[in-house]
């Protein structure tokens, strides 16, 4: 489903090879050290790289979404962990860009849902084996809706949708009114306790522009998360959507989510 090196299959143009990067980094380092600007070391390395990628990445050529195969999720929580490491997710356990929910449906129809610490450490064993009809895990994250209510309500336009279909927050612009958090039907947003601006999943946008898939997708051991172009390309996501009956969360709200679930139970909200 996914390329071995974590790249987005079919994404073009392909970024420089890892080897080239190393070489370029090395040259930059040599130049910088020779220049005697040791404190600027890292900056000097990063700036030319970023500039090189900006010219190569064309947002208009992409439109991203994610697929989630509920049957494949084992609730290990590695995705949540990877997200926390990769992104600036606040240390408090109750704020998270992505989380995993466990559903335990009893034979009598009762539904118990939990997500201890967003599922980052996996799940404790179920207390009673008897009386359980079925259990399953559901990974959740920002749905990067096409008709995103958060984008609609932001009073200053700090929350916006990129051309390639990713909903982002401009942290230098957000006034911290929290209206977007109220407007999100999926609980995908929070107010960053240190930055005092809205925080959320970015689909690891910093990785996307380098041709990499989001961290949660890359680490998933079972391939439960599938990333790629929503339409028009033979990517794993397109294949996933073709061979599965997919549905989105809370479709009646007409937010047009771009996270598509296969094998989703009706109890999931």
């Amino acid at each position, binding site marked *: 489903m996914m390329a071995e090196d974590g790249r987005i299959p079919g994404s073009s143009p392909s970024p420089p090879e890892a080897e080239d990067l190393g070489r370029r980094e090395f040259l930059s380092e040599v130049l910088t050290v020779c220049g005697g600007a040791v404190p600027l070391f890292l900056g000097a390395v990063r700036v030319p790289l970023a500039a090189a990628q900006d010219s190569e990445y064309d947002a208009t050529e992409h439109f991203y979404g994610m697929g989630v195969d509920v049957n494949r999720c084992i609730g290990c929580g590695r995705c949540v962990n990877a997200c926390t490491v990769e992104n600036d997710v606040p240390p408090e*356990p*109750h*704020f*998270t860009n992505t*989380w995993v*929910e466990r559903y335990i449906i009893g034979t009598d129809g009762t*539904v*118990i*849902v*939990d*997500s201890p*610490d*967003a599922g980052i450490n996996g799940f404790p064993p179920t207390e009673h084996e008897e009386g359980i009809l079925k259990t399953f895990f559901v990974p*959740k994250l920002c749905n990067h809706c096409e008709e995103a*209510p958060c*984008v*609609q*309500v*932001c*009073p*200053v*336009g700090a929350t916006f949708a990129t051309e390639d279909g990713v909903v982002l927050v401009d942290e230098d*612009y*957000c*006034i*911290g*009114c*929290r*209206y977007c*958090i*109220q*407007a*999100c*039907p*999926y*609980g*995908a*947003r*929070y*107010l960053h306790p240190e*930055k*005092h*601006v809205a925080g959320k999943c970015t689909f690891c946008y910093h990785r996307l522009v380098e041709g990499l898939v989001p961290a949660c997708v890359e680490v998933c051991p079972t391939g439960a998360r599938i990333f790629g172009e929503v339409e028009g390309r033979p990517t794993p996501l397109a294949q996933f959507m073709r061979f599965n009956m997919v549905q989105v969360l809370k479709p009646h*709200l007409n937010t047009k989510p771009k996270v598509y679930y296969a094998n989703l139970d009706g109890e999931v*909200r």
Partner: protein
Amino acid sequence: MQGYIYPNEFELQWSLLIVLYPYITGLVAGAFILASLERVFNVKEVQPTYRLSLLTALAFLLVATLPLLAHLGHPERSYEIFLTPNRKSAMAMFGFVYAWYLMVVLLVEIWFDYRADMVQWYQQSSGLRRWFYYALTLGATDVSEKSLKFDDSAGRWITIIGIPSAFLLHGYVGFIFGSIKANPWWSSVLMPVVFLFSAIVSGIALVLVIYMLTTMFRWRKIDMACLEKLAQFLFYALIVDFSLEALDFLHRLYESEESIEILSQMIQSRLFISLIVLQVLMGTVIPLILLALTSPALRKGGFVKAAPELKQLIFLTSAVLVQIGVFSIRWNVVIGGQLFSKSLRGLTVYKVELLGIEGLAVTMGLLLLPFVILWVLVKVLPPWSDTEASAPSPVAG
């Protein structure tokens, strides 16, 4: 916590300060609409409260933005809402609606109404005071009959513009909540209308209390005709408000959408005191009964004959109860809308903190501040019409 809530829902987003915001703007809109009763609809009985209502509206409007500012993550960026508003956002319009109401409606109406008096105060006083009142007249010191007539007609027109503006100011606050489709407790087309009528209720009740207290502390006689008229309008507004709330409730109950279960749980547990006891029973039903019996709303002179002093006490009690009720309405909307998870599977809790920027102390301060401002406004622009007539004032004496 009870049941399941999304991980990011552990923190309540909008706290006590945001409860204060619709409460205060409601008082502004309500007080203004009461003032317009006299001006546009010629309800002459409430004339003694006309200027008091306008000053009350102004005092509260000046404070209305403070709870919002205090609550922002980056208050220093709040001006962006004026500079680069997102035209699709309901909240982005706030700055403009607020500015329109303050600059175009309230200040201008007060200015036209007080201009002749300000000219008189300017002419009668000396020193700094003289220059202060001159500055307030903006140099327009013509008090000829023609210009006074113009003042009157301009004030009337501004009131006519002001009524829809007051509706806009507060209906808009209701829209901010009512348009959030993600939240079944808020998402209702009735929300702006309910907000509006509860605003009228709270405005009338507030002015009634302020009128009674200020008259008593100035050792003047309370104008019973005025008070009874206020009580009568309070009753009518309360009836409409209650009917709308009941309609909203019945509609939800009858439709029984998927959220009905969790909302019922919330009403029976988390909101029982604030909704059933404070809002419905104490804030609505008891005042309705009291006013129905003693005010001239249903029968001239009321069903129960009572001494004026007793009636005053009953009206005052009703108005105070109504204030508690309206504050509870705001609480139940703002806090209630955040006590259940959008997964519709669990309830969370909200604990009011005592200190801190979002705490009880700041809230009380922000509630008292308008009264301090009103006190200053009343000193600068005395709204009383009975000073010369019924009391020996040093100037006249």
